[in-house]
């Protein structure tokens, strides 16, 4: 089973730029990009890399099967067309013209275009952005199946859940830099802070800060805001100690906020004090 790596970061972090450089579509301003010990262009020319780019539709006037055959013919060791159609769930509409496909079907064919190349490294740039929940699940089932063949998959995403569920390893990017790199559960613990907000007048902040699972506290009028490393433990402790707490909200910190926290660490050198603002997701 090959490794599946998530390139995780908020919009504008540099994920797509990194991927474009990895694929030889963009030259680095400084330094070099290399893939399998050679230039990205050479790796691409050798058919060692395949990719599904962020945006893209299909060219018209070919059937799905013809389109997949056309792309497959460019690679040294393509998968069999029938196998790819099966794998991506595109068999039922294989003889349809590409311009007549629904949005979901188009996404399946786009995955098929990437898979037929049968590369050592498959790069996916925010592959599920245009998919609905069902399409997303089907897509990741397909990719898992592909990874069991010993292939490496690198995908860019700004969904922490997606990285957590489907990747073995996550590389965190912010402002064009890598801010963390490790197994997904570690990364998740690092950025997956939650905030508990509750109306609780007249309570001592220091007492709240001592509760299990709470890493920092703050007051907003009558409400208190608890930034938690473990919100499950924190909420139990909070309700045990203060049964009168009401209007309770538990909010997952968005990646943007988590990244702000992570990147602010350098400047403030005090991670505990970094405020967790309200999440948008």
């Amino acid at each position, binding site marked *: 089973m090959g490794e599946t790596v998530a390139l995780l970061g908020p919009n504008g972090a540099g994920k797509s730029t990194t991927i474009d450089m990895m694929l*030889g579509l*963009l030259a680095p301003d400084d330094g070099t990009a290399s893939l399998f010990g050679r230039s990205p262009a050479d790796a691409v*020319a050798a058919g060692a890399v395949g990719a599904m*780019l962020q945006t893209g539709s299909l060219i018209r006037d070919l059937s799905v099967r013809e389109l997949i*055959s056309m*792309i497959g013919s460019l690679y*040294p060791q393509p998968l069999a067309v029938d196998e790819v159609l099966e794998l991506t769930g595109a068999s039922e509409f294989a003889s349809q013209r590409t311009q007549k496909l629904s949005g979901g079907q188009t996404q399946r064919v786009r995955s098929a275009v990437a898979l037929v190349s049968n590369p050592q490294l498959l790069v996916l740039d925010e592959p599920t952005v245009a998919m609905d929940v069902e399409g997303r699940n089907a897509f990741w089932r397909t990719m898992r199946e592909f990874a069991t063949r010993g292939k490496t998959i690198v995908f860019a995403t700004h969904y922490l859940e997606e990285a957590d569920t489907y990747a073995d390893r996550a590389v965190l990017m912010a402002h064009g830099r890598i801010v963390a790199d490790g197994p997904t559960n570690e990364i998740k613990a690092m950025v997956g802070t939650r905030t508990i907000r509750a109306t609780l007048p007249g309570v001592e902040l220091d007492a709240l800060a001592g509760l299990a699972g709470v890493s920092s506290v703050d007051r907003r009028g009558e409400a208190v805001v608890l930034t938690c490393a473990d919100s499950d433990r924190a909420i139990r402790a909070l309700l045990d100690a203060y049964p009168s707490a009401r209007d309770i909200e538990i909010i997952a910190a968005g990646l943007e906020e988590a990244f702000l926290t992570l990147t602010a660490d350098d400047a403030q050198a005090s991670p505990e004090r970094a405020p967790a603002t309200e999440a948008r997701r």
Partner: protein
Amino acid sequence: MIGLTYIRYELLRTLRNRRFFVLSLGFPLVLYFLIAGASKGVHSIGGTGISAPLYFMAGLASFGTMSAMLSSGGRIATERAAGWNRQLRISPLPPRTYFRAKVITSYMMALLSVAALYGAGAALGVSLSAREWLEMTGLLLVGLIPFAALGIALGHVLTPDSIGAAMGGGVSLLAFLGGTWFPLGNHGFLHDVGQYLPSYWLVQASHVALGGSAWPGKAWLVMAVWTVVLSSLALRAYRRDTGRV
């Protein structure tokens, strides 16, 4: 050869686009019958010594084939907008094969256009010897090389919503200055400008009917210069065009 399947599907794709097909073949035909039909009996148009049906047959063939060659630009622009160009670039498809496929497809459309116009010309009484038909066709095909490059260059620079206007206007202007609609005469401003355009020499292919060679050395030189300039522009446009559209 790795590109064969790819080229075959590119051809198939073009043949299947029926609307494009009918319009690009039909439009020059209609124009031909309108213009040449009206002057069918003219034996020497504008003092050229060439009959009107023959002159306009070459004239409209140049118009039709220029459009056919440049239409690859429209297809490229659409493919770029769909992100397909980037998809191809991350495949082992060599640029050489990519260009070859585009040029072969354009030439296929151009040849169909030429065949249709020859049929129409014959219907209006154009009669040439086999050698003359072949020579004229050969000159037309050579004369289209710069346009193949121009189509690719435009396709990689323009967007689908601007390329229609650019191509329509460009072909009309080149056809006008090339003498598609009327002979430009042997002197004067239009003649002087036309001489340096590949479209002029396309239309001049009709001079095969006068015996001797239809293209003087100057014609070959003009074609060669345009080919070199436009090919390098096309290559440059293709190389630079790696970003998102």
